[in-house]
């Protein structure tokens, strides 16, 4: 019988190089500096997290009708709780808020239909961009089918924030594409008009544009012709983010190799066909992060309408802070607003990452 060499089984790795211990050693305690940093971080967490939890959850008061109800040392969430409807709908009449809810449910359903394969995406898009806004407008404003009219000055709260945000986003995107194409076109006059527009808007802060929208536009219109402040502010926000959008999209257009333009020309496509079918789908995909960042910026910038006297989510909270019944609950209001804005913005940025992954067609060289 031949002797076969049988290696003895390998020893398990030392306990210090696997499992939790190894992870801690490697990530937290690998060098003296690292140990100091870990200690420091733990100390910062010790200083911030327990008091925050104590303030925000353990010692907090959740219900009550005035400041007097909040006897604990923690947060007074009763303030947010009682005024929740106001934070959501602003000064919209409380018996009419179902109209806002209905519009919200409608849009969620409509957008949800995109996932149903049997429904034509084209018709759905047309419904969402053309029919839905008209329906929603009449739902919000009333004055038709026996709905009680509600002036736009009473629209407010999160409702107004989302309204400004979505209309701004939907309107500024195509405008931004047009401006970007204009800036890259070889027609000198069209090009310079686009450049002047984009650079002027980008050079000034949004607040000046808001002031222009609320103070200056009436001066530029003939007497008697005047339109709603909400609309003016919306135009301001849309033009502002369209200029930024244009620059982002221009970046994408520049990144498309010249061969793609030439190939489209060689196929005999017209300018618009080559743009819509060949260039833009590639260019827009490249700059999704930039586009979504512009959207997020726009959403955050809607808070500026408070400065020209409209009560969006931040504005209505600012207004509620002056209520003598609830003095000293400023922090709670701001924390609530911050939380809502954070959810929206963080959600948008995560969603953009998901789209990016979905549209990744694998042309990347590894």
């Amino acid at each position, binding site marked *: 019988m031949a002797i076969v060499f049988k290696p003895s089984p390998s020893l398990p790795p030392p306990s210090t190089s696997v499992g939790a211990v190894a992870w801690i050693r490697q990530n937290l305690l690998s060098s003296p500096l690292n140990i100091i940093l870990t200690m420091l971080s733990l100390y910062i967490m010790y200083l911030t997290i327990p008091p925050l939890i104590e303030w925000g959850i353990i010692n907090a008061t959740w219900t009550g009708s005035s400041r007097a109800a909040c006897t604990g040392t923690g947060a007074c969430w009763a303030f947010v709780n009682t005024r929740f409807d106001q934070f959501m709908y602003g000064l919209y009449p409380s018996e009419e808020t179902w109209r806002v809810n209905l519009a919200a449910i409608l849009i969620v359903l409509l957008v949800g239909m995109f996932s149903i394969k049997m429904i034509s995406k084209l018709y759905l898009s047309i419904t969402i961009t053309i029919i839905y806004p008209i329906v929603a407008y009449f739902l919000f404003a009333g004055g038709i089918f026996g709905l009680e009219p509600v002036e736009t000055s009473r629209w407010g709260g999160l409702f107004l924030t989302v309204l400004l945000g979505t209309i701004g986003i939907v309107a500024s995107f195509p405008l931004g594409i047009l401006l970007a194409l204009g800036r890259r076109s070889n027609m000198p006059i069209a090009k310079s008009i686009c450049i002047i527009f984009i650079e002027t808007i980008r050079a000034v802060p949004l607040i000046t544009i808001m002031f222009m929208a609320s103070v200056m536009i009436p001066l530029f219109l*003939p007497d008697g012709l005047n339109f709603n402040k909400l609309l003016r502010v919306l135009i301001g926000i849309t033009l502002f983010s369209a200029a930024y959008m244009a620059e982002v999209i221009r970046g994408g257009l520049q990144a498309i190799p010249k061969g793609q333009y030439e190939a489209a020309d060689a196929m005999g496509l017209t300018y618009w066909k080559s743009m819509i079918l060949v260039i833009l789908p590639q260019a827009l995909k490249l700059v999704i992060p930039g586009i979504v960042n512009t959207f997020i910026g726009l959403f955050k910038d809607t808070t500026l309408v408070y400065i020209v006297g409209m009560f969006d989510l931040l504005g209505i909270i600012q207004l509620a802070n002056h209520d003598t019944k609830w003095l000293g609950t400023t922090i709670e209001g701001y924390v609530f607003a911050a939380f809502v804005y954070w959810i929206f913005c963080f959600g948008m940025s995560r969603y953009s990452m998901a789209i990016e992954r979905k549209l990744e067609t694998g042309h990347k060289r590894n």
Partner: protein
Amino acid sequence: MSDIKKPTKKSFLYDAGTRSIIFQILLLALVVFVCYYLFSNLQANLDNRGISTGFSFLNQPAGFPILIHLISYTEADTYGRAFLVALINTFVISILGIFFATIIGVVMGLARLSKNWLVARLATVYIETLRNIPLLLQIFFWYFAVLAALPSPKQSYEFADFFLNKRGIYSPNPISQDGFGIVIMGFILSIFAAIALIVWAKKRQTRTGLWFPAYWSALGTIVVITFIAFAVAGFPLEFDLPVKSRFNVTGGMVLPPEFVAVLIALSTYTASFIAEIVRAGILSVSWGQTEAARSLGLSDNITQRLVVLPQALRVMIPPLTSQYLNLAKNSSLGAAVAYPELVAVVMGTTLNQTGQAIETIGLCMLVYGTLSLTISLFMNWYNKKMSLIER
């Protein structure tokens, strides 16, 4: 023989060149017409309301106080002076904001890349929280929730000669005495000496390859020479200390809460964006560069300083420029908490009092336009200086 048809002559309307000319003429006509229409309306409206145009109002007395002014200003001064005060306030908050935002941003960006898991997580939380909350909300938070909750002057927090209360931060105010000119002269002289030292060290290094700790020595030179000048002049600096009386703190240098709130919010908010830029910049330098530097035997410190950072900077500069521009423009949000910067003073109070909408808004847009242009020119110059010179 030739069956090839000559292309039939088409209408000139199908010619791309002609079309683009026609389109552009139409576009130009439209823009000119809209502008003309708007301005004729404006003229009519201004005439109707009896508003005279022009900048003569800048010479009239303003008649309103400005809380924070670095140059002397009283209510009797003109609108022009008020404009100047506001302009300086805008510049001060922008420059300080850029300074702090850069420091915090770089620290946070590096922390997010740290090998230490906890540090990286904490930095991520900081960045993701602050950049997803509107700046205006953050300014309100600092101003109305944090600084307004500080104790009244009577119960101020004290730390040495510093006081912290509702009305701001009080610190000793340095006041120059006779002979302070000598110190300034010494300081300027020391800067020249330091520059000369750096130039010499660089030349010597290219000639002989010997390294000299130029920057540290230059810093030392500045400190030593300035201190000697300070001593020679007989320490010509006195401090105006803030004094706590029964109900108030008087004297010293005051940083009002409006200023502090806007500065904190602006710098921490912009820092969260700068941190991401720093991180992306450093990640963009390929690992091969670090390996190459190591195989040359460079130490970790030198690798970072001479190999990774210069290449990362090149990627970071353009987005950094736009962040600095954003910060300068966002300083206008100070108007919301009555920090007297350009928008608050010119487009707020001045516009309300004089009704000169076109002039005031135009003035503001002009200033911000110039500011944007200056920062972007400077950063473009720096970008060019840093960019890769390819053969």
